[in-house]
């Protein structure tokens, strides 16, 4: 895909209403997440430390963050609910008295960072595997394909859970490489790895058909080396397939990250991602549903936008496989 091809694609896609919606939504989510520290400073809230004894100002009145329950004896505490203003505690507080809105924004930072890094890593790995298996063939292909078969057979979430459960709380110590238990690199690596079979299979098939194409035979006939063929012929033609996969893999990574964090196996405290927030809100589901609902809505909007974008890209670049 040359520069002209790219421009043509942008022009063709930018007239579609659903693509405009998707890009606007994604831009908004990313921008909001980037502004998380700004919001926390302006509103004067700390999203990470517990603030059970804190107060918030509503309509000129100072209210405790943890309100006594309505039952006759006023037993137990319920966090302050949302008032939908723009200031501090606009979405209320969670069970630790932390500002839900600021946690939502910070959670978006973690979720988006982990998911996009994992998707990038996954595509790099899958691309390399696809090229090795598809272009060189022979025993390399057999070995890699069998390996993918094995990974493919383990249900994705179970695989991710298995890898997380042995690293959670301990981190990874591999010779001179040490990753702390709270390092984002652990969930990134795990999520990237579990989706490799998903992305590597179509890429391998594409490389295989490309390496049998006439222009590759022609290049080889003209004496081009393998490296030159890969760089000049295969890679540029593989790029569209990777571009189509990117938003879809990113969407899957985001969902996987939220599931892992929901099971407390993803990002570790004090960091939080959208999945962690849903987990936090589970205990308050019937009294303060906003705590669990809001991060889920953020996930749905982001994943939906990515899926719309991915489908539009596929329709444009790969019309035969359209509609999936």
């Amino acid at each position, binding site marked *: 895909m040359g520069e002209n091809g790219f421009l043509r694609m942008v022009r063709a896609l930018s007239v579609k209403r659903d693509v405009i919606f998707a890009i606007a939504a994604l831009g908004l989510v990313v921008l909001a997440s980037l502004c998380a520290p700004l919001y926390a400073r302006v509103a004067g809230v700390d999203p990470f430390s517990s603030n059970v004894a804190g107060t918030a100002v509503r309509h000129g009145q100072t209210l405790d963050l943890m309100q006594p329950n309505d039952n006759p004896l006023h037993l137990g505490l319920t966090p302050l609910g949302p008032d939908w203003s723009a200031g501090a505690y606009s979405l209320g507080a969670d069970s630790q008295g932390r500002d839900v809105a600021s946690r939502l924004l910070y959670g978006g930072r973690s979720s988006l960072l982990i998911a996009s890094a994992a998707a990038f890593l996954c595509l790099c790995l899958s691309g390399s595997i696809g090229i090795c298996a598809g272009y060189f063939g022979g025993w390399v292909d057999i070995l890699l394909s069998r390996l993918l078969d094995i990974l493919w*057979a383990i249900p*994705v979430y179970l*695989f991710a859970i298995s890898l997380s459960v042995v*690293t959670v709380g301990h981190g990874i110590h591999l010779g001179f490489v040490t990753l702390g238990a709270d390092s984002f690199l652990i969930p990134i690596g795990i999520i990237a790895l579990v989706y490799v079979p998903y992305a590597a299979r179509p890429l391998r098939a594409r490389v295989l058909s490309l390496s049998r194409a006439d222009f590759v035979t022609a290049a080889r006939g003209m004496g081009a080396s393998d490296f030159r063929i890969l760089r000049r012929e295969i890679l540029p033609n593989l790029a569209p397939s990777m571009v189509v996969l990117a938003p879809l893999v990113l969407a899957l990574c985001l969902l996987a990250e939220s599931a892992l964090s929901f099971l407390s196996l993803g990002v570790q405290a004090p960091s939080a991602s959208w999945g962690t927030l849903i987990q936090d809100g589970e205990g308050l589901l019937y009294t303060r549903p906003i705590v*669990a609902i809001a991060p889920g809505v953020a996930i*749905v909007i982001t994943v939906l936008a990515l899926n719309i974008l991915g489908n539009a890209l596929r329709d444009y670049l790969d019309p035969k496989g359209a*509609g999936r």
Partner: protein
Amino acid sequence: MIAALLSRIGQMALVIFGISVLVFCIFFATPGADPTARIAGRGASPQVMERVRAEYGFDRPLPVQYMRMMEKLFVSRDLTSFVNHGQQVVPEVASAAPVTLSLVLWAAFFWVIGSLGIGIVSAVMRDSWVDRFLMVLGLVGLSMPVFWLGEVVNLFTQSRWHDTWMFRWVPPLGYVPLTENPLGWARSLLLPSLTLAVSFMGLYARILRSELLSAMGEDSIRTARAKGAGPVRVWLWHGLRLSWLSYVSLFGLDFAQLLGGGALLTEVVFALPGVGRLTYQALATLDLPLIMATVMYAAIFVVIANALVDGIYALLDPRIREGQHGR
């Protein structure tokens, strides 16, 4: 034919062996993740660590440990939990399996019915607002995290609207065995299985629609139309016949993945005591043998299901059987 079957079985055995090695390595040979430390607890003295290591056989070479573990899992089936001493893992999994099976069967029922309906309606009314609406709905369905959707469902059916006429029938979270009370069984599984089915419904409806639309361009459809077949016959009989192969093969894979533990999150949110929830509970206590057993069984189950799907596919599609369509 027999040679192909044998080679297929050989490949399957190889993949199963690979899976067992991989899963074993994840749990017992990950560098830096020492299972002894897990069992002995934080800050255990070196003597305690040494005793645990000897008792569980972690001081033996890895291949020996692997063989012993496989023997306990598949031959003697007396692998015990690291956490609840004396609790056997295999019967535990076996007793949880019917719950998962019931849940996934109901979900599959809903997602097949739903996706057939949505897919056919959108294909017939393609490019109308109905089609566009249904496809967006499908996309929303497959963009929702299933555990979050489950919580939203719980919020409305257990709390907010529980006392209205709509959801008064919803039983409290949990499972009722079929043998105890068939109606209660169906009621306790209705909402969980619908929740689980939503994302698949979206995905399958989209696939069916695109397959149906591409089938409509085939010569056989044109012939059928020319011979005077009505729209119902063209779409439901000729159209589905051309497009159901990829639907069925995909269905087999997803069904197996769900049975193998893909329904974990749904079971957790709806408190259904299936294999997934068992795994989840083992996560909290880091009970490695239990998690390993469920992952191993799941993977082997998926491999066998894949082979079955391939076999059915080959039986149904003469192009593959004759090897003309081979990869």
